[in-house]
């Protein structure tokens, strides 16, 4: 896993570091953007049997179908944690992943 993802107490994610982007049309409130981010992410995580939920607006909880769960403090830690839970890589270039998204 990448060391930037939590070991060093990473700050804001790069997607969330520009003030103009935070105010773009459709993402005016942090709550709305966060809900949208979780919703989109869950479309992908579903392929791995995982689900992301919000935790108090500050962290996330990643769960699998057997009920195991991990708290994620930072969005950058999502994919390393998902890979640890499913014990294989989450590869967006995997043709099966792309085909499933297009279906």
């Amino acid at each position: 896993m990448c060391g930037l993802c939590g070991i060093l107490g990473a700050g804001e994610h790069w997607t969330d570091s520009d003030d103009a982007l935070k105010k773009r049309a459709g993402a005016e409130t942090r709550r709305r953007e966060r809900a949208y981010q979780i919703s989109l992410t869950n479309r992908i995580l579903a392929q791995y049997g995982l689900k992301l939920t919000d935790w108090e607006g500050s962290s996330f909880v990643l769960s699998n179908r057997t009920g195991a769960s991990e708290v994620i403090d930072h969005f950058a830690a999502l994919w390393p944690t998902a890979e640890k839970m499913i014990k294989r890589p989450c590869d967006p270039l995997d043709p099966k992943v792309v085909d499933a998204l297009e279906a």
Partner: protein
Amino acid sequence: MSRYAGYLPVNVITGFLGSGKTTLLKRLLESPDMADTAVLINEFGEVGLDHHLLEQVDENIVMLQSGCLCCTIRDDLARSMRDLWERRATGEFGFKRLVVETTGLADPAPIIYTLMADPVIRYHFRLGNIITTIDAVNGLGQLERQPESLKQAAVADRIVLTKTDIANDDVGDLRARVRQVNPAAPVYLAQENLTPGKLLTNDLYDPKAKSKEVAHWIDAEAFSAQHDHEHDPNRHDASIHAFCLTFDRPIDWTAFGIWLTMLLQAHGEDVLRVKGLLDVRGMPGPVAVHGVQHVVHPPVHLKRWPDDDRRSRIVFIVRGLERRSIEASLAAFNALADDQSAAA
């Protein structure tokens, strides 16, 4: 204005052994524009550097538990930079720019990673242009045989061809190879009038220069020449190659962030450089994004497009990844956002 514009820029000068890094640095330091520059070098070489603020760092790499080679902290560099910052903060001396000269065999990625990962440094310093020197006499062979040399060329924002005055051949073949690896970086000859402005100071976070800088990234002419090379079946191998993807439809920022974060987790070691100018849905102007391996730097919103083309264009310099799979994957992730909007 991006708040990163106020951070101290760090330029990295890299290049293979004997490629003239120190000679170039010495020339640049002679300019009055470089008076407020601190310099960190890895080793004192044959070319003497006389600069009032010059320090040596011993290469001391801390590998994190990840085992990922590019996600290593240059502990020596981090300590030296923190020390420089403290001395600046106490008023011992002032500097407005830092130049780091690497060793000839150095992988630039850990230096870049250190800038983003160290909790103190990341709030005071930002990455400036990476300058790579390539020796016109030996460079072509080094690019073919030395992976460090190839990677140094791939991550560069500016490339300087050195020793062109003593090269037997013209540098056409070398230029062509450099263009294949990194079509977006301007290439200069060392004997040109190389000012700090050309190489160091004009970058993405400079409000006056950023529009011109992103125009380099997406230079259509460079990539149309590159596209011809992509039809060579031998280019779809494990070698480093570059391509520019174009998307007609606006990019959903949230979907893009999920996709790039996932891509870099899975393939960061092989995504040597990504530079994009995005037409983000809901934004009045383009957004510039750039990263080196696992590290993505803060995006910059531009008020205006650098040309009449309003499409999103993203340059990838990758090792062993196929253009078509990256293109299909990003398009599929972006289309998720359309589904979501329709359902809302």
